[in-house]
Protein backbone atom coordinates (compact mmCIF):
# COMPACT_ATOMS: atom_id res chain seq x y z
CA UNK A 1 0.00 0.00 0.00
CA UNK A 2 1.26 3.46 -0.83
CA UNK A 3 0.73 6.20 1.71
CA UNK A 4 -1.24 9.26 0.73
CA UNK A 5 0.38 12.66 1.13
CA UNK A 6 -1.81 13.31 4.19
CA UNK A 7 -0.95 9.97 5.83
CA UNK A 8 2.77 10.49 5.26
CA UNK A 9 2.52 14.08 6.53
CA UNK A 10 0.66 13.17 9.72
CA UNK A 11 2.77 10.11 10.59
CA UNK A 12 6.02 11.99 10.07
CA UNK A 13 4.75 15.04 11.95
CA UNK A 14 3.92 12.80 14.94
CA UNK A 15 7.46 11.36 14.93
CA UNK A 16 8.98 14.82 14.53
CA UNK A 17 6.93 16.17 17.44
CA UNK A 18 8.02 13.30 19.68
CA UNK A 19 11.68 13.84 18.76
CA UNK A 20 11.63 17.65 19.11
CA UNK A 21 10.05 17.39 22.58
CA UNK A 22 12.86 14.93 23.44
CA UNK A 23 15.43 17.45 22.15
CA UNK A 24 14.06 20.19 24.43
CA UNK A 25 14.97 18.02 27.43
CA UNK A 26 18.14 16.55 25.89
CA UNK A 27 19.94 19.17 23.78
CA UNK A 28 22.81 16.74 23.13
CA UNK A 29 20.37 15.09 20.70
CA UNK A 30 21.00 18.10 18.43
CA UNK A 31 24.69 17.30 18.02
CA UNK A 32 24.34 14.60 15.32
CA UNK A 33 22.34 16.94 13.08
CA UNK A 34 24.59 18.75 10.60
CA UNK A 35 23.82 22.48 10.31
CA UNK A 36 21.22 23.01 7.60
CA UNK A 37 20.71 19.26 7.12
CA UNK A 38 17.73 17.44 5.70
CA UNK A 39 16.37 15.22 8.48
CA UNK A 40 14.22 12.19 7.66
CA UNK A 41 12.44 10.07 10.27
CA UNK A 42 13.19 6.37 10.54
CA UNK A 43 10.21 4.72 12.29
CA UNK A 44 10.64 1.60 14.42
CA UNK A 45 7.45 -0.25 13.51
CA UNK A 46 5.81 1.43 10.52
CA UNK A 47 6.99 -0.34 7.34
CA UNK A 48 4.78 1.81 5.08
CA UNK A 49 6.29 5.02 6.40
CA UNK A 50 9.76 3.50 6.31
CA UNK A 51 9.32 2.73 2.60
CA UNK A 52 7.99 6.21 1.87
CA UNK A 53 10.80 7.90 3.81
CA UNK A 54 13.50 5.80 2.14
CA UNK A 55 12.08 6.87 -1.23
CA UNK A 56 12.25 10.47 -0.01
CA UNK A 57 15.86 9.99 1.10
CA UNK A 58 16.69 8.48 -2.28
CA UNK A 59 15.16 11.45 -4.10
CA UNK A 60 17.03 13.96 -1.93
CA UNK A 61 20.32 12.07 -2.38
CA UNK A 62 19.96 12.01 -6.15
CA UNK A 63 18.19 15.28 -6.91
CA UNK A 64 18.58 17.30 -3.72
CA UNK A 65 20.09 20.70 -3.03
CA UNK A 66 23.45 19.49 -1.71
CA UNK A 67 22.51 19.78 1.96
CA UNK A 68 23.60 16.86 4.17
CA UNK A 69 20.95 14.16 4.59
CA UNK A 70 20.54 12.29 7.87
CA UNK A 71 17.97 9.69 8.94
CA UNK A 72 17.12 9.72 12.62
CA UNK A 73 15.61 6.56 14.11
CA UNK A 74 12.56 6.96 16.31
CA UNK A 75 13.26 7.58 19.99
CA UNK A 76 12.31 4.37 21.83
CA UNK A 77 13.52 2.28 24.77
CA UNK A 78 14.40 -1.03 23.08
CA UNK A 79 18.03 -2.16 23.56
CA UNK A 80 18.51 -3.51 20.03
CA UNK A 81 16.94 -0.41 18.49
CA UNK A 82 19.23 1.75 20.65
CA UNK A 83 22.25 -0.01 19.14
CA UNK A 84 20.83 0.70 15.68
CA UNK A 85 20.23 4.37 16.60
CA UNK A 86 23.78 4.78 17.82
CA UNK A 87 25.14 3.28 14.60
CA UNK A 88 23.11 5.44 12.24
CA UNK A 89 22.72 8.80 14.01
CA UNK A 90 25.10 11.50 12.82
CA UNK A 91 26.02 9.73 9.57
CA UNK A 92 25.57 11.53 6.30
CA UNK A 93 23.62 9.54 3.68
CA UNK A 94 24.97 9.57 0.13
CA UNK A 95 22.58 7.10 -1.51
CA UNK A 96 19.73 4.63 -1.01
CA UNK A 97 19.70 1.63 -3.34
CA UNK A 98 17.89 -1.74 -3.52
CA UNK A 99 20.25 -4.69 -3.01
CA UNK A 100 20.84 -7.27 -5.74
CA UNK A 101 17.87 -9.54 -5.01
CA UNK A 102 15.56 -6.74 -3.89
CA UNK A 103 15.23 -8.07 -0.32
CA UNK A 104 16.78 -5.07 1.37
CA UNK A 105 17.24 -1.39 0.73
CA UNK A 106 20.80 -0.30 1.41
CA UNK A 107 21.52 3.03 3.09
CA UNK A 108 25.00 4.10 1.98
CA UNK A 109 26.83 6.54 4.27
CA UNK A 110 29.61 8.99 3.59
CA UNK A 111 32.01 6.98 5.81
CA UNK A 112 31.41 3.96 3.48
CA UNK A 113 29.45 1.98 6.08
CA UNK A 114 26.01 0.65 5.15
CA UNK A 115 22.72 -0.40 6.73
CA UNK A 116 20.48 -2.95 5.05
CA UNK A 117 16.82 -2.39 5.88
CA UNK A 118 13.64 -4.39 5.27
CA UNK A 119 10.11 -4.55 6.65
CA UNK A 120 8.88 -7.80 8.21
CA UNK A 121 5.92 -8.94 10.32
CA UNK A 122 5.26 -11.46 13.10
CA UNK A 123 1.97 -12.79 14.47
CA UNK A 124 1.25 -12.21 18.17
CA UNK A 125 -0.74 -14.47 20.56
CA UNK A 126 -4.00 -12.83 19.47
CA UNK A 127 -3.26 -13.69 15.85
CA UNK A 128 -2.63 -10.07 14.92
CA UNK A 129 0.13 -9.26 12.47
CA UNK A 130 2.75 -6.98 14.01
CA UNK A 131 5.04 -5.12 11.62
CA UNK A 132 8.63 -4.40 12.47
CA UNK A 133 11.78 -3.17 10.79
CA UNK A 134 14.74 -5.53 10.36
CA UNK A 135 18.27 -4.35 9.65
CA UNK A 136 21.85 -5.48 9.16
CA UNK A 137 24.78 -3.18 9.94
CA UNK A 138 27.76 -3.56 7.59
Amino acid at each position, binding site marked *: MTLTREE*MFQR*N*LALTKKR*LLHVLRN*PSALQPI*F*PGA*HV*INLPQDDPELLGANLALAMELARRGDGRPIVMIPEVTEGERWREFREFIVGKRIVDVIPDEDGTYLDLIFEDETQVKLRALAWTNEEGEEQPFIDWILT
Partner: protein
Amino acid sequence: MGRKDWIENLTHQDRLRVEFTARKGGVIEIGLIQYEAEIEGQWKPLVRYDMAHGFFHRDILKPDGTQEKLEIPYTDLAEALTTALEEIHCQWEFYRQAYEERRRK
Protein backbone atom coordinates in the same frame (compact mmCIF):
# COMPACT_ATOMS: atom_id res chain seq x y z
CA MET B 1 26.11 24.53 21.72
CA GLY B 2 24.56 27.64 20.18
CA ARG B 3 22.03 27.89 17.40
CA LYS B 4 21.22 25.08 14.99
CA ASP B 5 18.86 24.95 12.02
CA TRP B 6 17.72 22.04 9.88
CA ILE B 7 14.85 20.78 7.71
CA GLU B 8 12.35 18.14 8.82
CA ASN B 9 11.11 16.42 5.66
CA LEU B 10 7.47 15.33 6.02
CA THR B 11 6.52 14.43 2.42
CA HIS B 12 7.97 15.14 -1.03
CA GLN B 13 6.04 18.45 -1.02
CA ASP B 14 5.93 19.40 2.68
CA ARG B 15 8.61 20.19 5.23
CA LEU B 16 9.35 22.10 8.43
CA ARG B 17 12.31 24.41 8.84
CA VAL B 18 13.43 24.30 12.48
CA GLU B 19 15.88 26.41 14.46
CA PHE B 20 16.69 25.91 18.15
CA THR B 21 19.14 27.73 20.40
CA ALA B 22 20.64 25.48 23.08
CA ARG B 23 22.94 25.87 26.06
CA LYS B 24 24.44 23.14 28.23
CA GLY B 25 21.33 22.74 30.34
CA GLY B 26 18.79 22.60 27.54
CA VAL B 27 17.14 24.38 24.66
CA ILE B 28 16.56 28.01 25.61
CA GLU B 29 14.77 29.35 22.54
CA ILE B 30 12.68 28.15 19.63
CA GLY B 31 14.20 30.27 16.89
CA LEU B 32 11.86 29.00 14.19
CA ILE B 33 9.22 26.43 13.32
CA GLN B 34 8.20 27.12 9.72
CA TYR B 35 5.90 25.04 7.55
CA GLU B 36 6.91 25.13 3.88
CA ALA B 37 5.19 23.54 0.88
CA GLU B 38 6.33 23.03 -2.66
CA ILE B 39 3.99 25.06 -4.86
CA GLU B 40 4.47 25.15 -8.60
CA GLY B 41 8.02 23.81 -8.24
CA GLN B 42 9.17 26.27 -5.56
CA TRP B 43 9.38 25.92 -1.78
CA LYS B 44 7.17 28.56 -0.14
CA PRO B 45 6.99 29.37 3.61
CA LEU B 46 3.32 29.36 4.59
CA VAL B 47 3.29 29.76 8.37
CA ARG B 48 6.04 30.61 10.83
CA TYR B 49 6.28 30.36 14.61
CA ASP B 50 9.11 32.13 16.42
CA MET B 51 10.13 34.13 19.47
CA ALA B 52 11.40 37.23 17.69
CA HIS B 53 10.21 40.57 19.17
CA GLY B 54 10.27 39.00 22.65
CA PHE B 55 7.12 36.89 22.46
CA PHE B 56 6.06 33.62 20.89
CA HIS B 57 3.88 34.25 17.86
CA ARG B 58 2.56 32.90 14.58
CA ASP B 59 2.93 34.65 11.24
CA ILE B 60 0.73 33.51 8.36
CA LEU B 61 2.76 34.41 5.28
CA LYS B 62 1.05 35.67 2.13
CA PRO B 63 2.27 35.59 -1.48
CA ASP B 64 2.53 39.41 -1.58
CA GLY B 65 5.02 39.33 1.31
CA THR B 66 2.61 40.59 4.00
CA GLN B 67 1.98 38.68 7.21
CA GLU B 68 -0.80 38.11 9.73
CA LYS B 69 0.78 38.10 13.20
CA LEU B 70 -0.82 36.53 16.30
CA GLU B 71 0.74 36.28 19.77
CA ILE B 72 0.52 32.81 21.33
CA PRO B 73 0.68 32.65 25.14
CA TYR B 74 2.76 29.82 26.62
CA THR B 75 4.23 28.74 29.93
CA ASP B 76 7.27 26.79 28.72
CA LEU B 77 9.01 25.78 25.50
CA ALA B 78 7.36 22.36 25.39
CA GLU B 79 3.93 24.01 25.41
CA ALA B 80 4.97 26.51 22.72
CA LEU B 81 6.35 23.73 20.52
CA THR B 82 3.30 21.53 21.06
CA THR B 83 0.95 24.40 20.17
CA ALA B 84 2.83 25.14 16.95
CA LEU B 85 2.94 21.52 15.83
CA GLU B 86 -0.71 20.89 16.77
CA GLU B 87 -1.79 23.90 14.70
CA ILE B 88 0.24 22.66 11.74
CA HIS B 89 -1.24 19.17 12.25
CA CYS B 90 -4.79 20.59 12.02
CA GLN B 91 -4.32 23.46 9.57
CA TRP B 92 -1.59 22.54 7.08
CA GLU B 93 -3.98 21.94 4.20
CA PHE B 94 -5.86 25.15 4.98
CA TYR B 95 -2.61 27.16 5.02
CA ARG B 96 -1.61 25.72 1.66
CA GLN B 97 -5.01 26.20 0.02
CA ALA B 98 -5.32 29.77 1.35
CA TYR B 99 -1.86 30.62 0.01
CA GLU B 100 -2.68 29.18 -3.41
CA GLU B 101 -6.00 31.07 -3.57
CA ARG B 102 -4.31 34.37 -2.65
CA ARG B 103 -1.67 33.67 -5.27
CA ARG B 104 -4.31 33.29 -7.98
CA LYS B 105 -5.99 36.65 -7.15
